């Protein structure tokens, strides 16, 4: 589904990502872990098209997307959620998702009919909201939601673009235990239908969700394997897990 | 004539630098777009002119005018500008545009509409001959313009020392690239902001004091040059003192050369009457064209301070 080879990004003399190779198979949940400053956020930025890479290529579903801008990649089915929650605070929950539905349905150069009365868009948006369990809040302003709900909405917006592959940038960040469990349940339900690329600090979440794990240290992938392999890898233990405990 | 015009251009450039250095600092550190920076340019000229007439000494007047303008800057920061740092750029544009109107009217009311001439001591009234060059049979420059150039360079060096080699300067540089870090360092941010604003305003006032003996102090004298100063800041890169210096000298030379030689060039392709009307306008247009081209190539200006 997603093949990345020799991807690099430099900031001055600092190599944020250095010759990263990655192979995400269709239908799996692939997690990327690593200590702070390992280059995970940079990698996500490069994959989704927010940052341009200095070297390397990205193939998505067999197509070279390395030079494509972000919105083109999304249109091809490569969506993302943000680490820092970004939703449109002044819009209703429904409208937030509807923007994504609009984007997915082609251009929005329609200047006269009220968009809020477009039942086809509203229906699809409600359907996505039902998927993440937010149907009841659809009339609320996004700015009035709790942190956990905003994170859920964030995922709903990404889902509304009908992605083949979803990049999740620390979906559990800043959540309480209860909210985390709800989110975990939601992701588990998504798994299988959509390929997931997950960046996460919470190891419990990673090990309960991921089929494959890649370990990123100093901008390089030092190991890729199943959760069990990673758990037992001496290299990883030394470079990363070992430090932790 | 090239050497003479080069000196004229550098002198204009150094004045632009004095004006834009404060602008780029307040912009880079406080994220403040301050149109009323121009009012300090005007205020400096008027205060200095009045003091010169009062004391009879131009140099003494400059020495006395600096603390006065600094005090006014402090009051303005404390009462109005300080409340704008958290607002978006549009609000800042409007409020400081309002400040310009207020300052212009107060000056009109206080000093009258005619403006003030600044008498220079006799030793500054003369001219200096700098020999000749290939293009110039005789290079004769008014002594005072050389003084402006020299004084401007001295002040610029002082500013570079302040920003580059002192603790305050370290904080200013830190602030220009990352505002959040400042409060994390335990710096009294409010105090630093007031200080930077006052410093920038004094620099603008100094520019006004230096130009007053040439053009006289007049109402609204800053309103045109402030836009040029903004162009300098944008071209140089917001928050970059080095960028401001290079851009200011560049713009000063472009503007002067445009006025000096463009009409002759245009006469090659159009009637001399049309060329004489078009030349000053086109040379005024040049700097905007330059800015647009530079922003297209480098959307952050030539020397953007390193982010994050």
């Amino acid at each position, binding site marked *: 589904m997603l093949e990345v080879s020799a991807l690099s990004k430099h900031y001055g003399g600092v190599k944020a990502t250095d010759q990263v190779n990655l192979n995400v198979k269709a239908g799996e949940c692939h997690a990327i872990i690593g200590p702070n400053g390992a280059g995970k956020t940079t990698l996500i930025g490069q994959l989704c098209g927010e940052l341009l890479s200095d070297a390397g290529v990205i193939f998505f579903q067999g197509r070279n997307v390395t030079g494509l801008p972000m919105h083109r990649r999304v249109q091809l089915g490569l969506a993302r959620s943000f680490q820092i929650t970004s939703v449109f605070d002044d819009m209703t929950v429904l409208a937030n998702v509807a923007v994504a539905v609009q984007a997915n349905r082609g251009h929005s150069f329609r200047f006269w009919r009220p968009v809020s009365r477009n039942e086809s868009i509203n229906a699809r948006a409600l359907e996505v909201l039902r998927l993440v369990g937010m149907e009841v809040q659809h009339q609320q302003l996004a700015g009035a939601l709790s942190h956990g709900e905003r994170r859920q909405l964030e995922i709903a917006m990404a889902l509304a673009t009908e992605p083949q592959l979803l990049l999740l940038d620390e979906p559990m960040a800043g959540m309480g235990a209860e909210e985390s469990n709800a989110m975990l349940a939601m992701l588990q339900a998504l798994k299988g239908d959509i390929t997931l690329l997950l960046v996460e600090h919470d190891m419990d979440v990673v090990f309960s969700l991921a089929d494959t794990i890649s370990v990123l240290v100093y901008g390089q992938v030092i190991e890729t394997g199943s959760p069990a392999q990673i758990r037992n890898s001496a290299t990883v233990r030394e470079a990363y897990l070992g430090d932790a405990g | 004539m090239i050497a003479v015009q080069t000196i004229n251009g550098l002198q204009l450039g150094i004045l632009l630098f004095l004006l834009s250095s404060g602008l780029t600092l307040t912009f880079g550190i406080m994220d403040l777009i301050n149109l009323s920076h121009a009012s300090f340019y005007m205020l400096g000229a008027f205060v200095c002119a009045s003091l010169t007439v009062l004391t009879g000494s131009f140099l003494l007047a400059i020495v006395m005018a600096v603390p006065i303008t600094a005090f006014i800057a402090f009051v303005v920061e404390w009462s109005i500008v300080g409340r704008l740092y958290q607002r978006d750029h549009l609000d800042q544009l409007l409020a400081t545009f309002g400040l310009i109107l207020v300052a212009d009217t107060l000056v009109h009311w206080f000093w009258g509409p005619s403006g*003030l001439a600044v008498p220079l001591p006799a030793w500054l009234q003369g001219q200096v001959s700098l020999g000749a060059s290939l293009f110039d049979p005789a290079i004769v420059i008014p002594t005072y313009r050389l003084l402006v150039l020299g004084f401007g360079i001295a002040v610029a060096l002082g500013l570079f020392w302040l920003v580059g080699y002192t603790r305050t300067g370290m904080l200013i540089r830190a602030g220009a690239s990352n505002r959040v870090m400042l409060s994390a360092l335990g710096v009294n941010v409010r105090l630093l902001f007031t200080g930077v604003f006052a410093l920038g305003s004094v620099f603008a006032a100094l520019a006004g004091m230096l130009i007053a003996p040439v053009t006289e102090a007049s109402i609204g004298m800053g309103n045109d040059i402030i836009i040029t100063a903004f162009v300098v800041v944008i071209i140089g890169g917001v928050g970059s003192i080095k960028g401001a210096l290079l851009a200011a000298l560049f713009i000063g030379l472009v503007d002067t050369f445009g006025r000096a030689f463009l009409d002759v060039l245009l006469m090659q392709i159009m009637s001399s009457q049309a060329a*004489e009307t078009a030349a000053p306008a086109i040379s005024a247009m040049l700097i905007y064209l330059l800015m647009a081209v530079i922003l297209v190539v480098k959307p952050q200006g030539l020397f953007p301070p390193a982010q994050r």
Partner: protein
Amino acid sequence: MKLINTRPAILLSFVAACALSTAVFAAEDIKIGFVTTLTTGGAVIGNDQRDAVNLAMEQLGNTMGGKPATILFEDDGFKPEIGKQVTDKLIKQDKVDIMAGYIWSHVLMASYRSVVNADKILISANAGPSPLAGKLCHANFFSTSWQNDQTPMAMGELLNSKGVKSLYVMAPNYAAGKDMVAGVERTFKGEIIGRDLTKWGADAQLDFSAELAKARASGAEGLFVFYPGKAGGAFIQQYTQAGLQSELPLYTVFTVDSLSLPKLQAGGLDGVMGSEMTLFWSPDLDAPQNRIFVDGFREKYGRYPSFYAAQAYDAINLINAAAAELDGDLSDTDAVRAVLEKADFPSVRGNYTYGKNHMPIQNFYSRQVVADADGNWSTKITGTVYENHQDSYASECKL
């Protein structure tokens, strides 16, 4: 809902009150609209004109032809579009009987149509752009000043008589500036070596370093400039600082006047002493009304009047002549025009007549900067360049 209901009522009554307040004047009073510049640096000139108008009204006892007379001043802000707006206001809102003023040629060009189309008369107290003297001349347009070209033409003759062979020319880039350049070039027989038109307006260019360097390098025998208002002072300063008095003598029109001389004197810029200019008038001109004007002005305001003031003063007295003959009834524009055309009033320049384009036919003098008996810098007439001179556009006027 209270807010919604009361607000329009307040606004409506406010608007209505303001509209009605203008109707307070009794219908019979004479109302004169006077457009000049009262803000920006141009206000130096506007204030001088206003002072002269107020002096004239005071001397007339605020009556004209036995009727109370009022002046309504409006500020053009040095901008043509504002000038037109306030002209429209005076005509349509205040319903003035006659319009006067206008310092700037471009403001006048933007505004005059509003006046003449309303069948009212406009008396320019300064601006004299060439189109209004020629092709676009209008029966309802009069001037108490001059056509722009005349003064520089006199200067051209003066330069010829002094044997100047080559000239460098500088002027601001607007209607009057171009007229001034055209004027001096029409009569000057030597060579024009270089010409600079600089940015004008509210943000005029005031630093002339590049241009002065060009003038010096040109090797001309004389420097002709036209810089009215605040730019004049700035120019003289830089001219002096550049030390050009010795190599490039200065000949000016409308640049050195009673407004700039006190400032130049305070600034110790004695490079201007002895510099020559041409003009239709000078404070020392020997005419009966000029003594009344200059003495009255100096007594009331403690300074010499400028020629701008003299022209404004004349405009009021010209209107007064019409009001006196028509018993204070200025409503018949044709009758007013007939009286004005005679120019039968005590002018500060002595007597003059009107050409068919309603521009004065008058003398032009050369004057020089000197110190008066009290040591104040002023100007003194040194000779007569033209006698009863008519502008060269009058022949193009189809009236």
